[in-house]
């Protein structure tokens, strides 16, 4: 009985998404019926073929993938390097710099929106990939995640590698980094998903349809076809499917990511 209740709640949670898929197959005429139908009377795929053209689908996916991919690589590399320095190296002023980095975490994104926009605009990078990507390449949160992971490594491994004549660089690249792979995958995945779904910054810094990322393109469809719900739902399905596929492929790493970030949460 309780298990059936679980199933009912689960269906209730998913219902809006099911409805989205259902409406995306409806013809325009079905909007006018009352009460609104839950299932399409005469299913059609015309909305999808129209939206692939309008978005333009391939270009939007490419833009989003470029943004998410570049930011993922950038954040992982810079966070790993800085986290390693914070966790495993000694230098004067380290604690002060760590405290300063923590203070940076308190700066909300909305405070940076206007000055970053003016800056990118004056560099002439508005509506280009560098303008879209450059501001997001470093994440303080990622640095602390990596620092936490590097702190867990036993000192003995480092000493043994040093005995074998490993230099600082190979110590980091060949020894320490492979040992924190769960944290790296967690950070990479979260950075990728975060950027795939980022909205405000791309909305501000891109103008032309050929630079639009997924959510901006979707918002554009929403304003252009305000009255045509099936169109909007078809576009939403089209842009959600790749995200779901990515999450499905990365399911295993998602769990490890939750474990890593969950661990850092509880500390």
């Amino acid at each position: 009985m309780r298990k059936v209740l679980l199933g009912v709640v689960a269906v209730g949670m998913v219902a809006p998404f099911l409805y989205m898929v259902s409406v995306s197959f409806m013809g325009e005429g079905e909007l006018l019926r009352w009460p609104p139908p839950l299932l399409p009377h005469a299913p059609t795929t015309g909305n999808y073929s129209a939206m692939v053209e309008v978005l333009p689908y391939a270009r939007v996916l490419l833009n989003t993938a470029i943004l998410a991919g570049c930011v993922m690589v950038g954040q992982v590399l810079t966070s790993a390097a800085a986290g390693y320095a914070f966790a495993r190296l000694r230098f004067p002023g380290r604690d002060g710099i760590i405290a300063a980095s923590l203070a940076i975490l308190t700066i909300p994104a909305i405070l940076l929106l206007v000055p970053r926009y003016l800056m990118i605009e004056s560099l002439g990078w508005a509506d280009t990939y560098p303008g879209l990507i450059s501001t997001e390449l470093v994440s303080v949160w990622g640095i602390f995640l990596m620092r936490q992971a590097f702190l867990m490594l036993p000192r003995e491994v480092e000493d043994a590698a040093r005995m074998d004549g490993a230099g600082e660089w190979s110590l980091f690249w060949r020894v320490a980094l492979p040992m924190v792979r769960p944290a790296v995958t967690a950070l990479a995945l979260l950075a990728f998903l975060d950027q795939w779904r980022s909205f405000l910054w791309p909305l501000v810094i891109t103008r032309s349809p050929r630079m639009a990322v997924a959510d901006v393109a979707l918002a554009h469809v929403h304003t252009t076809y305000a009255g045509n719900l099936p169109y909007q739902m078809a576009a939403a399905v089209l842009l959600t499917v790749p995200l779901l596929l990515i999450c499905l492929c990365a399911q295993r790493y998602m769990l490890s990511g939750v474990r890593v970030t969950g661990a850092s949460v509880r500390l």
Partner: protein
Amino acid sequence: MSSRGWAAAVTVAATIAATLALAVVFAAERHYERAFAFRIAGTTAAYVAAVTPPPQPPPPPPPAPRVVRGRRRPSIRPAPPPPPPQLAPLSPAARSYDLPSLLTQARALQTLPGWSSDVEVYFGTAPLVDATAPPLSPDDLSYLAAAGLWRAGRALVPLKDRDGQEVVGAVAVRPHPMPHGPLPGGIGFAFPAAILAIGAAAATAFRERSLRPGARGGYVGAALFLALATYLDVRAAARQSTDRWLVDTRRLLQEAATRLPPPRVRVAISDLAAIVRDGEVVAGEPADSPPRRVRVDGERRAVVAVLIGSGRWVELRSVPAELEAPRWLILLLPSALLGPLAILLLRWAERTPARLRRETAIAWGFLGPAGLHLTVFTIGPALYAIYLATAANLPALARDPVTWNALRNTALYALYVPVSVALALVAALAVFRYRQHWGGRLLSTAFVLPYVASAVVIALVWQAIYRWGSFGLGRTDWLSNTGSALPALMLISVWAHMGGQMVVFLAGLQAIPPAYLDAARVDGAGAWRGFWRVTLPLLRPVTWFVVLTGVLGALQMFTLVFVLTQGGPSPSHATGVMVHRIYQTAFGQQAFALASALAVVFAVMLLILRWPQLAILRRQVRNA
């Protein structure tokens, strides 16, 4: 390092720093001289366009420098009568200028008393003032249509035809070199200050074996004095560029008053104002001749009085360039302070064992990319936002009811967080209990799905439900109803954010050792008591984290409002939240200063909530 080598290194560091500061001053002075040259060239072009009449039909032949050479026309002569009215649209040639008068006006410029620059006017590519000068290259002329040009110490600006359509020539201005310093005779502070700073560094370094704190303070003082001195010089150069333009433009206006083509008995102020496009000309009072700084409607202006006829005075106003001078401090301060920094570094290197020195260098190598990026793209913009905010009218902001309404809506909206956290905890407990069963796995997938979907997709899905009245919501559209719009958004948010919160709770539940609950059970506690007395207290840090993160996220909500309501329903701003208002102010009204002020105020408010979150993180950093 030997003490002599050490002292020499200190002196070299101080010299490099001082040279760098002087180089910045030099660059700034050049910048302001060029800015003056371009400005006066633009004004001259407008003057020439205003005082030269159109060509008389038939149009004169193209300029032949040989004919012109050596012939001196009288500098002032009655201007030719205006051409007969034409009914047909003007041909490009007719929009151009009468060449003989253009020649006269151009040559008159050179003999203008009190002008601080050489001037040349080109008609096409041919020079008119100094006919033996080399002509302009056609490439330069075509380039001028887009922008001004700096060529061989002269500022070149386009001379457009009478309608401002096509480039028919150019005006070139070569400013006479003038000393820029603030002291009488144009002597600057920067050079003596640089000598002083180097001297202070060398003296302390050679006298002492290593710098004692007191002596070091002396050098830091000298470096700060250097920064101040260089800034004063740059400011003086900026001030001078404005003053020079004012004085020279005054001469142009006085000339224009006598030369503007008839029929005019008295020259109108609006005709003069048309010549000065980047300044103002207003009716004025008699005043002294040097330029002054005054406040006009609360704004600082550089003004000069111009006598344009018997007893007729006008006032020429301009934005003083020195208002922009403080931005040079961004370059001046670091270059002056580079010296003390280098000395501190040398001092540290001298005392530190080689191993630690090496590790420090490596650590900075690792930190470099992230540090540089954070400085340029986070710390810099944050300071810039604060700087922008200073220009906003804060009292007006505080009186604006829309701001207060946005704050109220933001706080109200965040009230959904306790609800979603409670539901997420219940869901996490259910999933955890039935984690081996298909029901549990199905539930967790169903909860995580909205967490994975993007906010715009979620907004669109719920818009379909609300607008269409599906699932028995009825015909009233919740989103366009003043009373229900904000609760409607909160309902979406509860649904969307439960999943992510549940995942964190699950991780917390998994970390609780089962032995604790077993022990409670042995002691006779039921499931309810076990949850209340064991699980919940152990989950307290996780709960705190989820609530704080949730509230901070809720306060910064943007996407739902942007997609669904745009802050409406319209007159009451029922869903106008802070971030959306800041976005609207910046990119709707283009009021960047106001938007920055709002953002700074909002960031300070968020800081109060960030503090506990930061405390958790700090503890975590210290314990690790």
